[in-house]
Structures are given as C-alpha cells and as structure tokens.
C-alpha cells in the first residue's frame, strides 16, 4: 500500500488540479515521547518530485515545518485524459516511495 494518494481534477478552463496526500510522520526532532520523555528523532520528507508524462514539473525541497501527513496541491496548465502523473518522495532517513496516477 503506497503512502501517496493522488487525486486529479480537470477544471472547466482546461487546467488540471493535482492534489496529493502523503502518509508520513513529519517529525521535526523537537517533540518528546509522552511516555519516555525522550526526543523523537527528526523524520521528514526532504524531496518531492512530480512528473507529468515523464517531464519533471515540480522538484521541491520540503522541511519539517510541513504538517504531519502532508497535503499539497498544484495546478497544471493543460493536462488530458490518459496523461500519467508520477509522484515520489525521499525523506531524511533515505526512505522513499513512488506512486503513479492516470488523469481521467
């Protein structure tokens, strides 16, 4: 089960809205465990890449100031049914995930 959920919506003006929800703790390293009072190590997404038909349209660097289970939305000029959207992320511990989506 992928950590990335992708939704796309083709707007009336020909644009396509790309929305994504990523399951990730996004710990910034200053929170403490309520039971042990030990610091929770930082664990957050550092790179977010979105491809549209194999062209990279967004390369983003994110920090721990993004909320837990991050949500992002972007607006693509154009976009047709059948176009492929690929979203991938890499976090500071080297974990990564990738998810494909086809615009309806």
């Amino acid at each position, binding site marked *: 089960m992928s950590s990335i959920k992708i939704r796309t919506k083709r707007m009336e003006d020909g*644009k396509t809205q790309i*929305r994504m929800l990523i399951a990730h703790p*996004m710990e*910034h390293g*200053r*929170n403490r465990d309520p039971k042990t009072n030990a610091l929770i190590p930082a664990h957050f997404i550092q790179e*977010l890449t979105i491809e*549209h038909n194999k*062209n*990279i*349209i*967004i*390369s*983003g*660097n*994110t*920090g*721990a*100031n*993004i*909320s*837990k289970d*991050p*949500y*992002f*939305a*972007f*607006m*693509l*000029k*154009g976009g047709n049914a059948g176009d492929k959207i690929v979203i991938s992320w890499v976090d500071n511990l080297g974990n990564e995930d990738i998810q494909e989506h086809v615009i309806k």
Partner: protein
Amino acid sequence: MTDNRRAFIKKSVALSGYSILATGGLLASPEANAEWLDETTSTQILQQTLKRLFKDQKIIESDQIDIQIPKTAENGATVPITVTSSHRNVESIAILIEKNPIPLVAKFELSPDLDPFVSARLKIAESSAVAVIVETNEGFFTASKKVIVTPGGCEI
C-alpha cells in the same frame, strides 16, 4: 545578530532624538511609541534568513502575490496555506515562517507547465509572519501575512 542589535540601537537613539524634538523633551510621544512597536515586531529576522538563502539578491515587495491563510489558527499543527501569483514566468515558490526555529518550510521549483499555485499545510509554532518568495526570470518578489496561533497550538 550583532548587526541587528546595532541597527536597533542606532534606530532607537535616532528615534528618541526625534521624540525629544517633537515633544520638546517630554515623555515619548505616542507616535514614537508606535514606531518602536513597529520596530520590535518587524520582519528583520526573516530578512536575515532571506539574505542567507538568496545570497543578497534583491527581493522586491509585491502585491501580485496572494497568500490565503487563516488570520487566526486554533491548531498550529495544520494551517492551510494557498499561494497564487500573477507574476509571469514563475520559476520557484518558497514559503517561510518567521518565528519557527527553522524558518524555511519548502521551496518548489515549478516548470513552465504549471500555474503559480501552491497549496500546503504548515506547522506554525507561535504567532508569526508567513512569507512567500516568488522567483521569476525578472527577479525575486515577496509578500507576507501575519498569523495568530492561539495558545494550545504549540504542541506541533
């Protein structure tokens, strides 16, 4: 930091001189007080972060950047933000929160296929200004908005 303090002292000396002139040596005038408040709540720290990030690039205040963010947030852990801009040829959009321990939130490099539109959710530690830097091929532009985080929203 020293520079900042020096600038502050310089300005406050200049300010008190002004208030003496204005009030004829009486207590600080309301105007001077207002200016002092403005000084202490200004976005100077943010400006320093920007300098570090963008290497002395000239960043121009712009009214062509629209930031949609709640004025008050009950829960600082998830504050929705939507940034749109009417600048042309936008190459990247960066979001910063002035008073977070690490101000930079994210920087997205957008291809020409995308509208200058970014929506995300932020963690904001305390009431602070949220600034957006838009990079275009004509230079850097910025806009900011203040967000009040009500107590209880500090456990992010």
